[in-house]
């Protein structure tokens, strides 16, 4: 991203007229600064899929979109090797706007004014990227996906597909019925975010409630008996710690 190269902008909005409007405004801005439209996406997933190829410097990101909102998209795109600068656009969202003011996040109110857009784009090259902890704070609800960087792309893992999460040194291992991923997040924070979805069976392990088939007794290396979780569709058996034994009783009723 050097000063002489045109700024590449990706437009993300679920409403076609809103995308048209931004495109018109960008073509007006192009008279005054070197600018290129890198692409248009109608939802967050498309945007994440397009990003590595379209090499956007800036993403104009709508907040209220179906399936995955803009605040979550902004978190996932941080996994890219060279994440673009995010400028949020929104028509009205009292909560988000208040939070944006607090954290000095750049945003554009729809209908967007040409002057405001030009100003925001002019500052892009000097702006510091949004901090992840700020983004987490802005987003009230739990994410719909976790994400990892795979060969330069953002790979999304739907939370509904996750069987269990296991802390391993500085990573958390995410296990779905098909495969496993390593993410750099804290197990305690994940437990808080997806409260009600996972249950803690061990200091280092959260299991998705709906993936639990049942419990059985097993003998450990030390020869002592303990409970293990039997998972649906996965051969792995996860140890239940002595402290968490009460969940065997609680879940026993459900099975």
């Amino acid at each position, binding site marked *: 991203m050097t000063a002489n190269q045109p700024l590449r902008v990706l437009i993300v909005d679920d*409403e076609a007229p*809103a995308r*048209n409007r931004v495109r018109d405004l960008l073509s007006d801005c192009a008279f005054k600064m070197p600018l290129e439209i890198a692409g248009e996406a*109608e939802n967050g997933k498309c945007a994440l899929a397009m990003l590595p190829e379209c090499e956007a410097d800036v993403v104009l990101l709508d907040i209220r979109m179906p399936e995955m909102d803009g605040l979550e998209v902004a978190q996932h795109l941080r996994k890219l090797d060279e994440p673009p600068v995010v400028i949020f656009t929104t028509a009205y969202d009292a909560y988000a706007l208040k939070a944006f003011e607090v954290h000095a996040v750049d945003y554009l109110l729809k209908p967007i004014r040409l002057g405001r857009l030009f100003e925001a784009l002019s500052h892009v090259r000097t702006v510091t990227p949004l901090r992840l902890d700020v983004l987490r704070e802005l987003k009230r609800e739990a994410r719909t996906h976790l994400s990892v960087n795979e060969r330069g792309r953002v790979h999304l893992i739907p939370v509904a597909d996750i069987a269990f999460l296991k802390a391993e040194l500085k990573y958390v291992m995410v296990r779905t019925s098909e495969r496993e991923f390593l993410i750099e997040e804290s197990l305690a924070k994940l437990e808080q975010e997806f409260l009600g979805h996972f249950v803690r069976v061990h200091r280092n392990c959260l299991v998705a409630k709906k993936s639990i088939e049942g419990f059985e007794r097993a003998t450990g290396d030390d020869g002592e008996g303990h409970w293990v979780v039997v998972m649906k569709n996965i051969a792995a058996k996860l140890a239940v710690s002595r402290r968490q034994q009460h969940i065997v009783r609680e879940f026993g009723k459900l099975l």
Partner: protein
Amino acid sequence: MSINQNANAGALPNFRNLGILLRILVIVSGICLAAALLNAAEPRAWVEELIDLSALVQPILLASLLVLAAANPWLHRLRYPYAIAALIAIELAVTSVVYLFGLGAFRGVGALGRYWVFTLLVTGVLVGYFDLRGRALSPALSEARLQALQARIRPHFLFNSINAVLSLIREDPRRAEHVLEDLSDLFRVLMADNRQLGPIAGEIGLARRYLSIEQLRLGARLQVEWDITDAPSDALIPPLVLQPLLENAIYHGIEPRSDPGVVSIRIHRDRDQVHILLRNPYRQEGERHGGNRMALANIRERLALHFDAEASIKTTATADSYQVHIVIPYLKAGAQ
């Protein structure tokens, strides 16, 4: 074309409304019961006392209700003070007629004057009650106007629509003109005095304008199915019942999905009732419902005020859909 449906204080109740008639019957019977209890010489005699009293009061009451139901349209054309005077005259006349033709049962009991006093007292209590009730419910109507501007038309909708119009101005100025016309029609109704009933055809027209604005924003994601071939276009309905419900349907049912979703509207008449059924797709997980409840509560209050017990509003949520079912009595425009 619209009529005053006693929607505010300072008007007589609609004597052809079942709910109003029930209220009158219950109140008068209550007064009789109290009078019998007071009058009874010993505790066990009050049943006999009540039977005696009812034998006198019920004929007057039923005759009055018949006459009032017949005179209802005429009474409602009078200004309130004259209407009260006419009401009192009708009541005294009915009492006198029943007294004179009531044969022997009445003659032994007392002079006509006593019945006049009793009738006047009961009429006074009822007029006072309905006036207070009208006053208690009418803030719902002025509130409806305010809420329409503040919350029911969500700021979200307003700004997104303006944004959509802006996007059209360069490429399709004519369409932009149409959308602005629809938008101004919508706001004209929202800002109007919405206390009177209006024909359902107007409500349907407004809903169509609203939906065409949303269609512009949402494109193929919004599919609308109208089933109104059996709708009685002259039926009267409180204004702004359909539009806020459709706005909810789109906000909660269509906007959170990326695949197309169907909002269906069915309006039909079944004998003397008009049924309105709205259905939209809906996923229960994690959606807020605040605005929805506010619009529903306001519509419920206004229906109660206009139609009392003859109207109902029912919501049903299933795993993947949400339905609102409104029933109102079939009143024809121009009939009253």
